[in-house]
């Protein structure tokens, strides 16, 4: 086998972070090489460097033995390097053809030759089994199809090296399987693939070789046949990981949240994002909602927490109808919400930790009386929270932006648990968070349950759902296809439901609680 790509001694610093520290990596012709690492391990930075999107501070990249200098993706594309980004690099208002030809346009005279390109797209799509309609507008396509567009885009440019950055995060399990088949087809035709992920299962299934990164460095190389999930996880995190959360049997009592026939509208009229969903959550239990991202979970949560007006149906809290009630009122009635995207929704990054901690309660005594803020009580409270939740920070006046992801998340959890909680709604609580903080956050969620609150947990990580939930509901295309006690379900069953591939066994809420 010949070496296609060699990465030697790459370093890259961002203000305050060393993203890549003397990284070495190589890729052989016709192999799938998996790059494994936690969030923030420096994988994406390395890929952006290989693709010419950012310039390394030091180090060298060689292609087929020759050193290459990449000033921009243009150079990388010219050299046969293609990349499928984690966040798709597609122009939503353009058609598939336009997106694919962008930067490598075919022209007839001065005019763009769309017909020629779309014919080539059809060819490619047939050749590699990548089904797309060249004339569709990208914004109208589901994510799976968008990803196929991205792959065709790289193939259209004759990519010999294909980099895939976390390609499976947005896919259902069957779509993942499909993707893996496509990749195996690609390597047979001589394409070399760099596959970036933090999902151990996929790595073991598809990789020819594995490289593990941690804290900006390459910490290990492995072969899939000699590894298992446990050993890879340990390499990734740097210590033995307890995959199990310590928790006792749930002792649920009264009903706290009841959702009945709830539908929530979305971007397209007539296409509800959430469709006739019903379930209950009781005090003292954790209901986990599993499902691939983008199946209506976020909309469901926003409808429950007063951020989005439901189309129809009813939401009750402690027996009181709260359908369409605003967020402020719900907060005052004991609803806490840890949102999915902490930078956009959870925090004001330019604010101090103290200000972020009172973001919901600034207008209540002792923080604010008669419209006037009181710094003393706010700061005292902040110091207590920082201590109780082990937020690692120099002081409470530090800006939230300078904290690590895990500590930022702890600030949000501290804020949401710092007031009397009847219902805690958490969405992707541990995304992009280091393992130490994950453990801490998981303990807090269980403790909240044990204090008698109802907890609604949404996560795309099946492991997290399995580890924390007392009951599990699976969402697929806006519907809840199944609600089961956590103890009675296997990972495989959940995977099937998440893909919508098996006849759903919907149990009524009463049945599940029985």
């Amino acid at each position, binding site marked *: 086998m010949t070496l296609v790509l060699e990465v030697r001694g790459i370093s890259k610093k961002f203000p305050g972070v060393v993203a890549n520290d003397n990284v070495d990596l190589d890729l052989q012709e016709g192999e799938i090489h998996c790059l494994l690492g936690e969030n923030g391990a420096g994988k994406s930075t390395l890929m952006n460097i290989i693709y010419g999107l950012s310039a390394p501070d030091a180090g060298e990249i060689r292609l087929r033995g020759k050193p290459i200098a990449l000033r921009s993706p243009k150079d990388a594309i010219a050299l046969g390097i293609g990349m499928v980004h984690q966040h798709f690099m597609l122009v939503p208002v353009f058609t598939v053809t336009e997106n694919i030809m962008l930067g490598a346009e075919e022209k007839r005279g001065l005019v763009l030759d769309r017909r020629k390109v779309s014919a080539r797209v059809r060819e490619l799509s047939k050749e590699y089994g990548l089904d797309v309609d060249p004339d569709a507008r990208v914004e109208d396509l589901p994510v799976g199809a968008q990803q196929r567009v991205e792959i065709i885009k790289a193939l259209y440019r004759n990519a010999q090296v294909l980099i895939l950055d976390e390609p499976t995060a947005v896919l259902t399990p069957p779509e993942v399987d499909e993707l893996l088949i496509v990749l195996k087809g690609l390597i047979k035709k001589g394409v070399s693939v760099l596959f970036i992920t933090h999902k151990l299962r996929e790595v073991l299934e598809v990789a020819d070789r594995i490289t593990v990164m941690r804290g900006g460095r390459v910490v290990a190389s492995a072969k899939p046949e000699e590894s298992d999930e446990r050993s890879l996880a340990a390499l990734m995190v740097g210590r033995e990981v307890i995959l199990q959360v310590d928790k006792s049997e749930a002792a649920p009592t009264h009903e706290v949240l009841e959702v009945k026939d709830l539908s929530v509208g979305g971007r397209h009229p007539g296409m509800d994002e959430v469709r006739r969903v019903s379930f209950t959550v009781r005090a003292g239990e954790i209901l986990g909602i599993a499902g691939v991202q983008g199946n209506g979970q976020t909309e469901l949560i926003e409808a429950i927490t007063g951020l989005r007006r439901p189309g129809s149906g009813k939401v009750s809290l402690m027996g009181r109808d709260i359908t369409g009630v605003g967020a402020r009122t719900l907060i005052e009635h004991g609803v806490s919400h840890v*949102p999915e995207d902490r930078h956009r929704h*959870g*925090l004001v990054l330019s604010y101090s930790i103290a*200000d972020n901690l009172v*973001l919901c309660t600034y207008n209540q005594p002792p923080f604010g009386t008669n419209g006037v803020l009181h710094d003393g009580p706010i700061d005292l409270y902040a110091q207590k929270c920082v201590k109780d939740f082990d937020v690692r920070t120099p002081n409470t006046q530090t800006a939230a932006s300078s904290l690590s992801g895990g500590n930022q998340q702890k600030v949000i959890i501290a804020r949401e648990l710092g007031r009397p909680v009847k219902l805690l709604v958490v969405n992707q609580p541990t995304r992009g968070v280091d393992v130490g903080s994950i453990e801490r956050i998981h303990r807090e969620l269980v403790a909240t349950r044990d204090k008698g609150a109802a907890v609604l947990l949404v996560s795309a990580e099946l492991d997290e759902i399995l580890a924390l939930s007392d009951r599990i509901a699976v969402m697929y295309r806006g519907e809840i296809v199944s609600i089961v006690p956590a103890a009675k379900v296997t990972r495989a069953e959940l995977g099937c439901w998440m893909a919508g591939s098996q006849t759903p066994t919907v149990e009524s809420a009463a049945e599940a609680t029985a």
Partner: protein
Amino acid sequence: MTASDSPTSGLGEKIRKLTAPWKVPALAVFTAMVVGAILIAVAGGDPLAAYAGMFEGSLGSPRAVAETLVWSTPYILTGLSVALAFQGGLFNIGAEGQLALGAVAAALVGYGLPGLLGGSVPAIVHVPATILAGGVAGALWAAIPGWLKARTGAHEVISTIMLNYVALNIVSFLLNGPMKDPAPDNVIARTPLIAESASLSPILSGFRLHWGFPLALIAAALVAWMLKRTTLGFEIRTVGANPEAARYAGMKVGRTIVVSMALSGTLAGLAGAIEVSALNHRHQLGFSQGYGFDAIAIALLGKTKPAGVVPAALLFGMMRSGAPRMQFLTQIPVDVISVIQALILLFVAADVMVRRLYRLRGERERVVITRGWGS
């Protein structure tokens, strides 16, 4: 010049810490003056004499100082108006129109109220009523783009620009028609003189400096206090920094946007009202023009904080008030002041230029208020 590489002496450290954030604005002003000096020299003038004239004209005598403060008063208020909106994440280009309508409303109450109430009105009632009328008019006018943004997402930059012209046309219509001074010898598009009882008096007789200046300073203090110490200010700043997080935290984002714009408009309206009540005693076409854009420069030079806006407004007031004397002494066209002010805005906004020029270290500060048009 960071703290780490200099020996720590208590006081020096403190001073450095206090002055550090103002280094870029100060150097921006300095650089703009230098470029202005080069321009004057190229045009065949004597830059030193020109600046000396400006200095003399703005601070050279008690009267000059008083006149500078007179000029600074509307600058402080409009600067605060823009700065307050900035704090709320809004770009209010409409101070010009809000000021004009504030001035018209103040004039209307100033000359019309006695007739409406059928007799004279005591100054203790009439003066506040006149000034408040201006504030209310500005508030209502500015609330429109706020409401449009909250309701339809229409970007406030474009709607305030449009509303500026709408306001100026309305004012022109009113001053040429319904509100025109009916005095027999009047031909100018202007309102009647306001009643004596509606006039804000000078602080010292013989000088034009009026109580509007301390009012503007009080307004600055109030805005600073409101932003920093009240729940409303907290909401405005939160919506400004991250509207989504504010929404998730249960704040009413739309309402806060309308309130921010209304408060911003109030300040601009007050500027117009004070010009009418304390200085011109009427409104006339051509009065108080061009404050809207200057206010943007002032707000940015003052780092969108009230404590910064006041000195920035004083500086702009000095330039404008010193300009006639500069021209008197050197015959340099007063447009050079506009050039210098534009350059100040340029160097404050593109602080990278200043930092590179003076090799200042430290993180660049991004002044990005508007992200995207949206509509």
